[in-house]
C-alpha cells in the first residue's frame, strides 16, 4: 500500500440502546482495491456501512476521508464527499420514473430560490439515458417507472446513478440479495469492473464465493469486531468460515 488510504476508520463504536453493534473497529480502505466485507447476520456490517454513508452517527471513534477528519451529518454530506452507497433494499422509489430516481436529492435546476427551483427535465432525461448506457444497461425509456423494472435492472440503475455522480468510493451492501442468478452475475460483473474504472469499492455479501470472485482483500466481521483482514491470495474460504 503506497498511497494514503482513502478512508481510515479509527476505533469506531456504535451502541443501539443496549446493543453494542460495533466494538472498536479500525480499518483502512485503499484507493486501488475492492474490499469484500463478510460476516454473519448481525455482525455489524450494515452498521459500519451506514456510518460511512452518513445515515447513522457513530457513538465513538473517528473517520478520515482522503486524510481529513469527517463527521457526516447525513447521507447528503457523504454523497457530497464522494461516497456512494447501494443498499440491499434498493434506494429507488418504485412509483417514480428512472430519470427522476437518478437525480433524487441532486436535481439539476434551471433556476432556484433558497434551494427550491424548477427542474431541468431535459437534462435529467438526457443524462439518465447516458448514465444507463454507460453501465451497459439497456432500458426502453427514462420515463419508465422503476417499479416496472426487475430487481437486477433496479440495482443497475442505482449503480448508474452512483457512477454518474462520479463517486470516489462505491459501497455495495448486499446488492445481490433477492436477485436471480443471471442478474446476480451482472451485478458481480459490475463490482469487478470497478477496478478498471479505478474506483475503490466495499462489497458486502453473505455469499463468500461472490466475494472471492470479485474482491482483492477480505475483511471478516463477527459480533461487532474485525476478526480477519487479509489479501485474497493470502487466505481461503475455509479460513474465513472458521473465524466467523
Amino acid at each position, binding site marked *: 500500500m503506497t498511497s494514503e488510504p482513502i478512508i481510515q476508520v479509527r476505533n469506531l463504536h456504535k451502541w443501539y440502546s443496549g446493543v453494542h453493534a460495533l466494538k472498536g473497529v479500525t480499518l483502512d480502505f485503499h484507493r486501488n482495491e475492492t474490499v469484500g466485507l463478510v460476516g454473519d447476520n448481525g455482525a455489524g456490517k450494515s452498521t459500519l456501512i451506514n456510518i460511512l454513508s452518513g445515515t447513522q452517527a457513530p457513538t465513538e471513534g473517528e473517520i478520515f476521508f482522503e486524510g481529513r477528519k469527517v463527521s457526516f451529518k447525513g447521507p447528503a454530506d457523504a*454523497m457530497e464527499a464522494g461516497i456512494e452507497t447501494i443498499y440491499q433494499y434498493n434506494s429507488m422509489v418504485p412509483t417514480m420514473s428512472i430519470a427522476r430516481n437518478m437525480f433524487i436529492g441532486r436535481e439539476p435546476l434551471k433556476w432556484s430560490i433558497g434551494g427550491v427551483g424548477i427542474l431541468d427535465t431535459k437534462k435529467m432525461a438526457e443524462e439518465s439515458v447516458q448514465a444507463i448506457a454507460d453501465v451497459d444497461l439497456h432500458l426502453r425509456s427514462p420515463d419508465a417507472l422503476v417499479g416496472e423494472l426487475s430487481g437486477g435492472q433496479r440495482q443497475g440503475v442505482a449503480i448508474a446513478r452512483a457512477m454518474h455522480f462520479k463517486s470516489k468510493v462505491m459501497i455495495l451492501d448486499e446488492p445481490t440479495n433477492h436477485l436471480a442468478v443471471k442478474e446476480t452475475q451482472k451485478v458481480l460483473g459490475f463490482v469487478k469492473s470497478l477496478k478498471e474504472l479505478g474506483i475503490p469499492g466495499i462489497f458486502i455479501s453473505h455469499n463468500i464465493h461472490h466475494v472471492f470472485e470479485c474482491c482483492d482483500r477480505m475483511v471478516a466481521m463477527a459480533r461487532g469486531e474485525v476478526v480477519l483482514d487479509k489479501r485474497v491470495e493470502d487466505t481461503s474460504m475455509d479460513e474465513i468460515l472458521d473465524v466467523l
Partner: protein
Amino acid sequence: MKRFMKIYLEKPELAGVAFLVILTIVFQARSGGVFLSAANLQGILGLLPEVALVAVGVTLLMICGEFDLSVGSVFALTPMSMAVMLEAGWPFLPAFALGLCVALLVGFINGVLTVKFAIPSFITTLGMLFVARSVTVVISGGFPPLLPNGAFPKWLFVAYVGPGDMFRMSFLWFVAIAVLVTLLLSRTNFGNWVRATGGFLPAAQSMGIPTKRVKVACFMLCSLLAGLAGSLQVMRLGAPLPSIGEGLELQAVAAAVIGGTALTGGIGTILGGIIGATLIRVIDNGLVLSQVDANWFKMALGALTVFAVILNAWLRKTAKSIKVETGK
C-alpha cells in the same frame, strides 16, 4: 397503440374523469337540461373553490405520505380568528394575515408532532381536529361576530366576474393556486422530494432528502389552503360560524382518493384531487336538481369513493398487464 393505452390507463385521474362524464350526462337528462344551464353552473363554480382548495392541500399531503384530519377545523378557525380581529377594529390585511398565520401554525404543529415523535399523522391531526374546533368556538365567544360591512374587499375574493358573471373571484384564486401547486409538485425539486418521501421513505432518506422538513412543509401548505378556503366561504356568507367545515376533512380525503391518490403515499395528482372535489359538488348539486332526498348525498359519496378506488386498482392492474418492453 399499446403504449398509448397503457399510459392512459395508468393515469390516476382516469376513474374520476369517467365518473364525472357519466354523472354529468345522467344529471343533465334527469334535470331536464337544468344541470348544465348557466345559472346552475354558476352555482357549482361558486362553491367549488372552497372544497377544492382543501382537496388540493390534502392531496399534496397524502402524496407526501401523511394525513390531515384537522383541515375542517382549520377551515373554521382561520376565518374566525380573522373575524375576531376585524371586530376588534383591525384593518383587513393584518387580520387576514393573522388568520392565515394561525393556519400555518396549526400545520406546523401537526407536522412537527408527527415527525418528531414518529406517530401516525392520523392521530396527531385527529387530536388537532378537536383542539382547533374547540379554540374556534372559544374565541367566537359563543356569539359568532358578524363581519362588519365593507370590512373586507368583496371585489377581490367573492364578487362575480367573467362573461355572464359566470365565476366568482374565489374561482380565479383557486385556479391560480391549483396551477401553482401542480407546478410545485411536477416541475420542481421540492415536488420530487414530496413524491420520493411519500413513495418510499427509506430511499428518500438514504438519498439525503430532508424528509422531515418536506413533511412539515406539506402539513403547513395543506393547513394554509384549508384556512384560505374557509376564509373564502366566510366572505361569501358574510358571517363566520364556528361550525363550518365539519366533516370536510373526510370529504377532502374522499376527493383525493376518488381522484386516484393512494393512501400509502407517492401516487396521485393535484388535478385528480380537483376532479374528486368537483365530483362531490356535482353529486350534491345534481341530487338536489333531480329532487332526490338530500340525505342520499352521503350514500352516493360513500359508494362513489369505494367504487372509484376499486376501479382505479383495476385500471392500474390492467395497465400493468399490458406488457411493454422495459429492456432489450
